[in-house]
């Protein structure tokens, strides 16, 4: 089963490789991993999307907790939560009619065109992974040049908060 694990860790060099190394050393799946400093610059927050049986995910959370740099973590899958992923997509629009059609699709998916040239658009779109997949599918008839996806970020709804 797919799990989203949010991790608060010391914002120190090497902390990321400790987490990445743990996953590869123990053979755990890692679908995506995003990390950035938080409002407290000594802290980084990481969102890891992984999958495995309940036993494996239990081991993953225990092994993460065992890393000295990890302060706290939360398996968001256990709570009502929101997840978002962002993508930037560069698409060629120099065939007649493509500019209008791609703009319409972007509007339908609430994407924004953030760069325009005579030949290309860059579209920014945010949502759950499945929405991003659907948008990319809708863009299939058009020559997509590049896709950058951020990986998943997540946060729990309501009072549940991952903080120290």
């Amino acid at each position, binding site marked *: 089963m797919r799990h989203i694990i949010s991790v608060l860790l010391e914002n120190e060099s090497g902390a990321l490789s400790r987490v990445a190394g743990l996953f590869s050393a123990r053979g755990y799946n890692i679908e995506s991993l995003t990390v950035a400093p938080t409002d407290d610059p000594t802290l980084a927050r990481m969102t890891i999307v992984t999958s495995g049986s309940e036993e494996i995910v239990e081991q993953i959370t225990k092994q993460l907790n065992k890393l*000295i740099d990890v302060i706290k973590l939360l398996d968001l899958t256990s709570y009502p939560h929101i997840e978002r992923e962002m993508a930037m997509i560069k698409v060629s629009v120099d065939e007649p009619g493509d500019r209008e059609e791609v703009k319409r699709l972007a509007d339908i998916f609430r994407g924004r065109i953030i760069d325009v040239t005579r030949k290309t658009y860059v579209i920014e779109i945010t949502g759950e992974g499945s929405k991003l997949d659907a948008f990319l599918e809708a863009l299939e008839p058009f020559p997509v040049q590049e896709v950058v996806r951020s990986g998943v970020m997540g946060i729990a709804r309501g009072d549940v908060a991952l903080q120290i």
Partner: protein
Amino acid sequence: MSETSASSTAITGAEIFVRSLQAEGVDLVFGYPGGAVLHIYDALYQQSEVSHVLVRHEQGAVHAAEGYAKSSDRPGVALVTSGPGATNAITGIADAYMDSVPLVVFTGQVPTSMIGNDAFQEVDTVGITRPCVKHNFLVKDVKDLATTIKKAFYIATTGRPGPVVVDIPKDVTADSCEFEYPESIHMRSYNPKVRGHTGQIRRAVELILSAKQPMIYTGGGVVLGRGSEALTEFTRKLGYPITNTLMGLGAYPASDDQFLGMLGMHGTYEANMAMHHADVLIAIGARFDDRVTGNIEKFCPHAKIVHVDVDPASISKNVKVDVPIVGEVEPVLRELIRALEENGGQPDADALKAWWDQIREWRGQDCLKYDRDSELIKPQYVVQKFWELTGGDAFVTSDVGQHQMWAAQFYGFDKPNRWINSGGLGTMGVGLPFAMGVQFAHPDATVGCITGEASIQMCMQELSTCYQYQLPLKILNLNNRYLGMVRQWQEFFYQGRYAMSYMDALPDFVKLAEAYGHVGMRIDKPADVEGALKEALAQKDRLVFLDFITDQSENVYPMIPAGAGQNEMILV
């Protein structure tokens, strides 16, 4: 966030290093100098509180530090240079990681300005050691040095112990700042849990008292956690049978009737059978290692399991347990004893009597028997005689292989911290440097190293260290001219195709020992074993290398073959 004391004027990083070790109460460092640590060696040279032992290879330094730590209540400390110094130390670090040995390993590093430039003797030590340390640090600023050393000792020795590497660039040891050693340390990301959950302890006691066929299974955690006394009290109070893992031997006195011997792949018939038939298993400071469980699908099929461990990640990792208790074993055992008293219930005496009758029947199998009338020296006999002649009170190290199993089976350890071996990583070559570390920690004790002619050659050069420091070790080389355990597997599972398991062109160990300044003896008749051991033990101030020419065909029994259950042993 740390409280500090005793400030002074600026001193160099190298001096801070030495002063920090003094503040930690470190009396001994095992190491080997080199370019990146020259400032540190210069500072060590100018004081006398911290002694330094010069080994012959950095692997030996780390293993010696392990031996020192495993046999005492202090962490081991090693100091090596950058590059090859650090890579040579890796095997020891990985060994300490697998067996949870509290160790602080200091590695030199090229100057910070040169890191990443492929400088002379540069490796990414923090990167290379990351998967085999409890934690590691690269100190980039002399101002962080004292606090980092404090953290390193704190992390290495608390919770589930383990090795911590501190990588120190050369310029950091030359730079100066004020020295303040933190008195205590608090890390928001590291709070080793100590006390067991009261509710879980109550549940455990109910389960323990409900048992008809109970079994206590304890591991290295009881030795590391100084829980031996509490374990003995707990076990005697219940009257239940107990087994120890390879790493846990000595935690419960081997000479006691409730002790069923070691369990696992080469464990006793009675211990493995009792595990298999148990209805309640009390696991303490053990991690359900594959050499213990055999085929996990067939492991303890009837048992409800209580598991006490300081490391939550060890619980339900390999085997799902019913009552997990996270906590240090000693206080948890004390709480279990108290909870047993408060509960007031007693074990089911009739059921227990029937269970012991069954166990005695299994014991009757006499699974460790061997041919005592053989004309060849039986390795088991050598170990047994050594045990007899030392009154079971020596410190014993071993290497890895058949001789290790015979040492575990035939030297009955009545006390913890006496049996020093490599269980997790299974590192050949540890025996001699382990023994050096033990002898340094216990200068007056008898320290035996039970080894084989293959393992001993892996860190042989340390015989030179032993001579320099006049360590009176007794090395029992069970020389069967084979990589015995490899040969045994090839006999059992590869139809006797002995690929590369024969040790051809062996050195003359007697001459070799003498070349290093020690006493060498060669023994090839069973009748001479006792006399030779007595003679060796009488030479209190000399290292004696006893080369026992043993029966080449002897195998370790019982044996649970790979993939089999605990009740499916090959018996002699």
